[in-house]
């Protein structure tokens, strides 16, 4: 209990002392709320045509309708939900891969490290978007989970590399030796003693990974390789492009999803940056 209260106090302190964090968190929470309670407050089916094509915003349709007569605001709500979900889940996969590959390599060293570093470097050299395109094109039907998986396995390398270098500097600290003298196994030491020292760092990287995955998903969707059968922010943009929304001057159709992608990723970058300044591991451990 005391721990939870401490965390609250810390969070309030952090928000107070960094306006950037405040803005980032506000924008991001706005979108999370939109995705979560939007469908309850605005229960319009985003797929159902209402036979009023390309209507500009009006009280009935706050963001107008698209060329097929579907409500853009309802699409935005659902798109935000799926984009956040895809970004979040892809970041989970990328972070687990990054932590395990970077952590194990850095901690155990030797041949394992050489091998894992090689794999990481190969992934780092291949342009992510090209790899994504090739892999995505391979699937005819791309369920949201396939897209999540693809984004996950293309986003981890840079995280693995930083985790590895962090571990390298942590493992020479003597508390690792102390833990060995306690009879703990190497894996236990890695996960119980070393990784918790990088928690702030991991959280920051996780946030960054969400932003990267959301933007990548949008990019993938824009060229027609996004998830099939669901609405994501990227997919809305895709339709707007395909139906030449710009030529019709239907700004309400392409600006909201575009702006949302920008704002969500920007807010995540702001949070990441502010946390970096606040919880830089170096500042935390020095006395």
């Amino acid at each position: 209990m005391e721990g939870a209260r401490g965390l609250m106090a810390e969070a309030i302190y952090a928000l107070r002392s960094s306006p950037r964090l405040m803005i980032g968190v506000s924008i991001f929470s706005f979108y999370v709320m939109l995705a979560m309670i939007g469908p309850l407050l605005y229960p319009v089916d985003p797929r159902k045509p209402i036979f009023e094509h390309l209507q500009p915003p009006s009280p009935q349709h706050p963001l107008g309708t698209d060329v097929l007569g579907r409500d853009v605001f309802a699409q935005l709500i659902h798109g935000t939900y799926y984009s956040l979900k895809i970004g979040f889940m892809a970041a989970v996969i990328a972070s687990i891969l990054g932590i395990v590959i970077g952590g194990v390599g850095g901690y155990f060293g030797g041949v394992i490290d050489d091998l894992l570093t090689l794999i990481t470097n190969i992934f780092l050299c291949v342009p992510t978007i090209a790899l994504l395109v090739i892999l995505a094109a391979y699937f005819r039907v791309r369920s949201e989970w396939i897209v999540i998986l693809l984004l996950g396995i293309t986003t981890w390398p840079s995280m693995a590399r930083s985790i590895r270098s962090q571990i390298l500097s942590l493992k020479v600290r003597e508390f690792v030796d102390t833990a060995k003298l306690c009879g703990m196994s190497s894996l236990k030491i890695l996960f119980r003693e070393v990784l918790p020292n990088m928690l702030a760092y991991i959280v920051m990287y996780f946030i960054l990974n969400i932003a990267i995955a959301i933007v990548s998903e949008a990019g993938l969707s824009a060229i027609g390789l996004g998830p099939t059968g669901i609405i994501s922010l990227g997919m809305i943009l895709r339709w707007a492009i395909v139906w030449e929304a710009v030529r019709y001057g239907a700004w309400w159709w392409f600006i909201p999803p575009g702006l949302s992608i920008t704002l969500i990723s920007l807010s995540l970058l702001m949070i990441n940056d502010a946390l970096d300044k606040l919880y830089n591991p170096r500042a935390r451990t020095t006395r």
Partner: protein
Amino acid sequence: MSILLRVEKLTKIFTAGGIFGSKMRVVAVNGISFECREGEILGIIGESGSGKTTTMKTILKLYKPTRGKIYFRGRDIWTIPNKEYYRHVQGVFQDPYSSINPVYRVRHLFDNIFDNLLEDVSLDERHEILSEVLDRVQLKAEEVLYKYSYELSGGQLQRVLLAACLLVDPELIIADEPTSMIDASMRVTILNVMRSLREEEGKSIIFITHDIGQAFYICDRLLVMRKGKIVEEGSAEEVVFHPQHPYTKRLIADVPKLGKKLILRR
């Protein structure tokens, strides 16, 4: 007295830098041999960088020797499983701040020991046992157990680490500058704890220090290290009162004696 630990022609070379760039090579310990007997306090003295810590970490199986062998009760230490070895041999490292994980409270260190080395102690007994060992190093359990390392002074942490050793109750303790941050008045008390470990419980201690006065107060025998080699070895009296090697002679001469004015050397 039987031999507890034997170090034979131990060499440890650190290399760094890989395929590219010049390869750095440091000979930290250079072919040293010595033994530690049962129930003795063996002092290792020498200036900084002379290889004391490296020797200690190699004995604790934290570094693999480049050459040479170490035997504990006649068994090559690398053939003894870690858990078993660490029940018999424990260590205190030089830097107390870096020795304790900054993300956990001090209690976590003791719980790690209970969980891995002392599995037969029940949860309810833990606190009482901890109070006991902490009391021996003049600490109060409630003063330190639930604090983070950065909330304690260096001297308090060094005593916490010594208490962790006492908890394991090994036959051999290797302590690297274990009193460097403890105030003089408290330091004597801690050195007395180590003395009584030997006198009353027959434990062996390898005491690493650059403070010859402290070594002389508690050690039976002394090794003098310089640049990775042992330059002199003998009983504490022999080494301090009749040093043979020029380096030892100078070292002993440089030790400040209370109230003796500095004689300028030109």
